[in-house]
């Protein structure tokens, strides 16, 4: 039993006591709502991200039709009221395909983000907290991962993991993102470890696992959370790029990148087949980056 543990029972020692935290949260919520009204770009970005997530979870809400339903009577039709994104060479509705493709692209990007964020945070935390030899070894590994351009690293993994599965593509993109997350996390852990409360916990005799899990980790995650959405946008770019190159979901399975790829042959005659799904990718990444920047600014203002 350590001095700090004696001084305050563990349960009441959380850094922010309940009611004050709630008040702070409500104030922040009101402030951000007011901020949203003044910032339509951010509001639209949030709305778009929300819509895309809903489309990934329940595509039927936006596109009740079967995305693979072939109707040769309406082949290669330009966007119209009944087919907002037009139709492809088999008369499939491109809007339906794109909406249903969300359910492939987004989970893969989410997996990539989780892998990059999870493994990167753990490595960064260990390096920053343990210092010494573990730090040296981990950071050299990070240097090596950074020295290989991300897409090449992902391609190398894909060539071994196998092709045709969006999960493998997500995993590969996630591994390629580990290094940069580890760097950010390590820098933050180093900063937090210098703080008075970490020193106090140590002097109080708390075990190192406790210091890490209760004090260092929660206080270091801030910048990493901000980067989550940025990483998510990057992961969408990576996943769709690999699919575009032909290593992700195979046609006719709809996926954003492979939709763009299969529309490529009709670029001169039916531009919508490539450009519209491509625009959806760009808008989603743009929106995710915009929201991420807003979070970053919010944090910067709070500090």
């Amino acid at each position, binding site marked *: 039993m350590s001095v700090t543990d004696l001084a305050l029972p563990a349960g009441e020692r959380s850094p922010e006591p309940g009611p004050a935290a709630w008040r702070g949260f409500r104030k922040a919520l009101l402030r951000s709502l007011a901020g949203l009204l003044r910032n339509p770009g951010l509001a639209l970005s949030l709305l778009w991200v929300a819509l895309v997530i809903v489309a990934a979870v329940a595509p039927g809400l936006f596109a009740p039709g079967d995305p693979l339903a072939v109707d040769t009577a309406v082949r290669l039709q330009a966007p119209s009221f009944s087919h907002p994104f037009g139709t492809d060479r088999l008369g499939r509705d491109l809007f339906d395909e794109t909406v249903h493709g969300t359910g492939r692209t987004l989970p893969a990007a989410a997996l*990539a983000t989780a892998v*990059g964020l999870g493994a990167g945070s753990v490595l960064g935390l260990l390096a920053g907290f343990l210092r010494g030899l573990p730090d040296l070894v981990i950071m*050299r590994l990070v*240097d*090596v*991962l*950074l*020295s*290989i*351009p*991300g*897409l*090449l*690293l*992902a*391609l*190398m*993994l*894909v*060539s*071994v993991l196998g*092709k045709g599965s969006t999960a493998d593509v997500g995993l590969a*993109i996630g591994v*390629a*993102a580990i290094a*940069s997350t580890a*760097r*950010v996390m390590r*820098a933050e852990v180093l900063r937090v470890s210098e703080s008075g409360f970490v020193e106090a916990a140590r002097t109080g005799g708390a075990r190192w696992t406790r210091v890490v899990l209760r004090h260092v980790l929660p206080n270091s995650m801030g*910048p990493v959370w901000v*980067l989550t959405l*940025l*990483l998510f*946008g*990057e*992961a969408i*770019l*990576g996943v*769709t*790029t690999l699919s*575009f*190159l*032909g*290593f992700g979901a195979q046609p006719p399975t709809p996926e954003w*990148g492979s939709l*763009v790829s299969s529309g*490529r042959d009709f*670029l*001169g005659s039916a*531009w919508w087949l*490539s*450009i519209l799904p*491509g*625009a959806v*990718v*760009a808008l989603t*990444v*743009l929106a995710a*980056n*915009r929201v991420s920047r807003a979070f970053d600014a919010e944090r910067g203002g709070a500090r």
Partner: protein
Amino acid sequence: MARFLVGRVLQGVFVLWAAYTLSFAVLYALPSDPAAIAAGTTNSVTPEQLAEVRHAMGLDRPLAEQYLDKLGGALHGDLGRSVQSGERVTSLIGGALPPTLAVAGAGLVLAVLLGTGLAVLSTVTGARWLRQALLSLPPLGVAIPSFVVGLLLLQWFSFTWNLFPAIGEGGWRGLVLPAATIAVQPAALIGQVLAKSMSDELGKDYVDVARAKGAGPFRVTVRHVLRNAALPTLTLAGLLVGGLLTGAIVVEVVFSRNGLGQITQGAVSAEDLPVVQGVVLLGALVFVTVNLAVDLLYQVLDPRLAVGRRSAGRGPAGRFALFTFAGRG
């Protein structure tokens, strides 16, 4: 200085060795069967034939032995032979390099021009709306996937207006659209970081001095601020060149150009592991070399810097930059 140089070179050699080891571990230690790929996936391959291929490729030996053997070969510039064509990996990659270098080089020049132009213009201009419009371009450029940029350019400049050929071989006209495509993301990155760096520099004393001596806004920006603001941007060079290399993969596929990208795509689809490893090593080599060059350049350009102090990847700009290429190089 000599000690610094030796230290940096050793560090670079270490990273290259580690990249080799990592790629070996991923490609050969993970459960996949290069022999089966080499022998073909048809059912007519008997287990005896497979064992023969495996023996010929040296895959039946202990992993450590394979590793040392391959590493020894790599040190002598021998990265093995392509499983598909039997050609030497080094000559395969060397042969594919010139067209890729042409696109990447043209893209780099274009990216530096566009990015610098954007940063300078947004700093010089007194018009608020123009500055805001200019500064909203980089986030857009970073968010659009490069294959979409390429397809859009093709759609407009080749199919609608017939200005440039759709298939990117042959002469400078075929180079324009691929180079423009590959330049968008690095240009956005350069513009973003340089504009931020320039606005930081604007607050410094020497700017006041230059203004007091009667320099106009353009002269202050270009002669004084740009020179000092360019230094932090230089740390992006390794990242940018790595990004150009992977950008070339996408661009070559979009424009059906020959080059490293086609080779890489083919090697990954055919699981031609020696070629994949060769391309990965080339990526690491380029990154290490560019960073070494930047380190040296830094010593020359900024004498204030004590040897070996550099803040690559720190600060918000660097952090964003790191992430901007996380997914694609």
